[in-house]
């Protein structure tokens, strides 16, 4: 009984950002001629520890790096996968666009009925893209992605699976946004 309780309570509750899969789907970002994007440091306004993902019983599930940093990295990788270059922002950096981001949702919610648990992975980032030439405009949008999954217990592995898949899906919302593409094509 003690062994069972111990197994329940311990175990890996730090998720590695390297385990988050990369997108392998097509994106209209590729239709834009190669650009350079300078990324400012993303903010996390969730009001929790920067690594915190969700809490179950006595366990906290966290990411091995700050969420805002991992989200920024994932967006950079998606731009680069589609032929663009991403650099860290510095006042003298030569880039076509500056990108700022604010993560305001990144959590796992539970909808529990008697024999089914619905897991709801909820992610959101506000992205602001500014052309470095003045008067060429700013594009800003709140990107949100929510995925749902039901199973009998909603145990740790199901929770990890749905949360690990949440970030690529959020990034896909950005990389398939026609309004963003139209702005970048101007």
């Amino acid at each position, binding site marked *: *009984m003690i062994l069972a309780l111990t197994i*329940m309570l311990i175990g890996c509750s730090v998720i590695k950002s390297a385990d988050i899969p990369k997108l*392998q789907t097509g*994106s209209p970002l590729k239709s834009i001629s190669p650009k350079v994007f300078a990324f400012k440091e993303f903010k996390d306004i969730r009001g929790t520890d920067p690594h915190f993902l969700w809490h179950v019983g006595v366990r906290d599930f966290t990411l091995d790096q700050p969420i805002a940093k991992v989200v920024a990295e994932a967006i950079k990788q998606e731009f680069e996968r589609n032929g663009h270059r991403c650099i860290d922002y510095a006042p003298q950096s030569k880039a076509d666009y500056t990108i700022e981001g604010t993560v305001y949702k990144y959590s796992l919610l539970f909808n529990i*009925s*008697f*024999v089914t648990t619905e897991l709801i992975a909820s992610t959101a980032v506000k992205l602001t893209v500014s052309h470095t030439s003045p008067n060429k405009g700013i594009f800003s949008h709140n990107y949100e992605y929510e995925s749902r999954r039901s199973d009998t217990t909603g145990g*740790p592995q199901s929770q990890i699976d749905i949360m690990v898949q949440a970030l690529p899906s959020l990034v896909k919302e950005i990389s*398939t946004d026609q309004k963003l593409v139209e702005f970048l094509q101007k």
Partner: protein
Amino acid sequence: MIKRRIILSFILILSFISCTTPPRKQTYINNESLSGIKKVAVVSSANAPDALFSISARESGQAVQVVAAIFPLFIFPMMVLEPAARHSEDKYHSTTINKNVDLMHIEDRIAQSYVRALNKGGIQIAEYIKDKTQDNRQLIEAGYDAVIRLLVREILISRRPGDYVGLNVVTNCQILRADTGKIILDRDESASSSELHTLDDYKINGLKELNTILDKIANNFAYDFLYLK
């Protein structure tokens, strides 16, 4: 006594292992797998929407847990009866909503959006095949380089905060190459509505955002063809 404890421990461990279907394996396209494809047949199908309103209600679930805690003998009957009652209620909701749902329209919409997106880009001839009796062999014999099957697998009306519901749609796309007989793409795409409605609203007015969701999914599938070459 020790044997009983070991058995009880195993039961406790197993009860916390999630009983769930593992995620479906996805196969993604790469630029080599698309080479030489000039003419494609697009076939679509759809499953009827399902309401998951009652089965995902939290408040009643907690009440049942309280009853079961006070009267433990009721645990097992409740585990069977309660979900059955909710399932029956959701079946009623689904039947009512489906009176306003035209499956053929859903199939037409996803296929036509997809064909439109493909024909804008690299694929010279993408044709929507409405005749569902034609199998892959017949389509290949008719001269298509690939057969693309779109299946709107799930249209779920699930609970949102409060008494609102939203739409979640999961669609599968499978592409079969004629020359090799191999499946070069087999993946899912999902999208949800950003609007919230009541269940009654859907029953009276139909699934308002469904067309927008289907267009989005179709475009996302088309991007694989257009931008992974």
